[in-house]
């Protein structure tokens, strides 16, 4: 809470230039010798911290503080479809159990659906303290309006400290709806979570396209909401259930909706490289199509999808849907291994956001190395067979 106050007496042309250069968001306007901050300001407070002295000052305004002890429990929303839980929920339970070691809060699971008995039992085996189940025929399919009503009722009744959602397409449409309903904060697509002893959840995510990380908190609102990417945490080891199950009365919850689901069609799985978590990408250094056999073992062991550069599409070695780059697909897997790819800018733009980039190339000056986390200097025809030897030893 607060604002940036500008001491106009100390403003001069030099000061303005300094501030305009310092501000990453172009938020300083200087008109008629009056310096003001426009709506582009993100309150990063850099101007107050690192700007010319006695010009910008952050004025803290205090607001009535909530009593945080009234809100207890980290709740995991168990996303389900056709009464099968999405595994991201179990990972979130695993993380919640770690976090509650610090705050000594219970871990809850929240399940909404039409026949959730199996999911309820499954959730218990991950060691949650309580499962809250809202079961009704009208909850068979995910409906953002009906489901939001449920979460609202749940929070009003149980006053939980935080609710975590999987960062799936469903979760990312659902959680914001809940946040606006409960007028609280929500951080999208967290990649890390931490907690303070007072229960403040630290929500960590890449910001501004992924080159920097931001640690976000919700200091004076409850519940604290976050969506978390799939495959960020580990599911806990399953245990003998000790938690309790509470089936809630749904009869009084509003079930009206303006959205009618007409048709659902499952997508063919594992076809689209943009969805791949692990990619082995091959380039022009492969001289013959037959040589692609070299990567078979690696691909199998990693559970990777194979992708390629444009020249290999032109050779007719791959389906065009397998091409990475501006004229192909953009990919952002957790791991990409580039084999014998020279790194034309069009290719680099299509994969530079990948989380871990390993590239193998015999040319030490190749452009892809500059953006790779690991640049492995070597000929693919030499390195891969050696790697295959090591891979075949472990299983």
């Amino acid at each position, binding site marked *: 809470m607060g604002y940036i106050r500008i001491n106009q007496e100390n403003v001069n042309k030099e000061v303005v230039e300094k501030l305009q250069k310092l501000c990453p968001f172009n938020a300083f306007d200087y008109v008629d010798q009056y310096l003001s901050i426009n709506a*582009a300001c993100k309150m990063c407070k850099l101007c107050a911290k690192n700007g010319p002295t006695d010009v910008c000052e952050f004025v803290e305004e205090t607001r009535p503080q909530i009593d945080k002890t009234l809100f207890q429990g980290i709740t995991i929303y168990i996303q389900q479809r056709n009464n099968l839980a999405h595994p991201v929920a179990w990972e979130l339970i695993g993380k919640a159990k770690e976090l509650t070691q610090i705050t000594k809060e219970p871990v809850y699971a929240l399940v909404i659906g039409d026949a959730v008995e199996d999911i309820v039992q499954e959730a218990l085996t991950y060691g949650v303290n309580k499962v809250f189940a809202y079961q009704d025929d009208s909850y068979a399919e995910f409906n953002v309006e009906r489901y939001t009503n449920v979460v609202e009722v749940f929070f009003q009744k149980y006053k939980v400290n935080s609710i975590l959602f999987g960062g799936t397409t469903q979760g990312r449409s659902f959680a914001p709806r809940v946040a606006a309903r409960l007028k609280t904060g929500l951080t999208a697509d967290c990649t890390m979570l931490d907690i303070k002893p007072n229960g403040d959840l630290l929500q960590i995510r890449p910001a501004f396209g992924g080159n920097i990380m931001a640690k976000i908190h919700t200091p004076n609102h409850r519940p604290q909401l976050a969506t978390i990417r799939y495959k960020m945490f580990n599911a806990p080891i399953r245990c003998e259930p000790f938690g309790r199950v509470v089936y809630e009365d749904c009869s009084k919850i509003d079930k009206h909706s303006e959205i009618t689901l007409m048709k659902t069609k499952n997508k063919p799985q594992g076809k689209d490289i943009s969805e791949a978590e692990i990619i082995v990408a091959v380039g022009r250094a492969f001289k013959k199509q037959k040589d692609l056999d070299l990567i078979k073992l690696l691909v199998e062991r990693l559970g990777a999808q194979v992708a390629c550069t444009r020249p290999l599409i032109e050779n007719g070695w791959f389906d065009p849907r397998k091409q990475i780059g501006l004229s192909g697909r953009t990919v952002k897997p957790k791991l990409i291994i580039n084999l014998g790819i020279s790194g034309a800018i069009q290719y680099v733009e299509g994969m530079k956001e990948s989380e871990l980039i390993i590239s193998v190339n015999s040319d030490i000056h190749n452009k892809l190395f500059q953006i790779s986390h690991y640049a492995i*200097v070597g000929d693919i025809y030499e390195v891969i067979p050696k790697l295959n030897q090591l891979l075949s030893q472990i299983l």
Partner: protein
Amino acid sequence: MNIVTCIKQVPASSKVDVDPITGVLIRDGNNVKMNPYDLYALEASFRIKEQAKDCQIKAVTMGPVSAKKVLEEALYMGCDEAVLVSDRKFAGADVLATAYTLSQLIRYFKDYDVVVCGKQTTDGDTAQVGPEIAEFLGIPHVPYVVEVIEIKQKSIIVKSAYDEYDEITEVSFPCLLTIEKGSHVPRLPSYKRRVLFQDYRIKTITIKELQDNDPLNYGLNGSPTQVEEIFPPNKRANSIFIKGTKSEVASQLFKILKEQKYI
């Protein structure tokens, strides 16, 4: 029929870094462009207009005065009106405060049937603002729209792409749609329209004109989330070079994959 299309000006480059010594955010704030997802939101709006009768499209954005540039682009592409909502009191807005401000602007228009947003922005990357606007307006939303199938008298039928499945839904007006990238090829701004809008003045709305003008609900004050800290990611900014004999580099590669638990 009235459409409101929400767009945003974003940095042209996503390259943002933290100075490792001073911890200062380095960003080239001078180069800006329209959020790429919004081009698809606009195109979807134009397609709805083409199918519907007597349809008007308003492009809106929240931001500094300089954000009028993206509104002009939207006009040249095919929007009928453009409105900027801008106020110093909006500074430091997080998702909730941004969505609230836009919802207040949309309420100010009174008549609207469809609100169209891009799926997400390339600077915030949250994909949350659209659904939150819908909630604040008390209207349904359908996310990740890849195709507008049919426009009826009081509803619209659209196809959405979720992670593992596609859904076709019918949603009543008024509603909000968020549009997935790649849904339809966005048209280019036209010179003819540029001439047409030569003397057009983009309207600016400030907090005073909104129904709720309590500054505590906007900007930093209306934002439940706060950035406590920014820091460089753990992953190495500089490449690690691995050189040696073929056996050495292969075993290094093997070790990395093992350490990262990929094998």
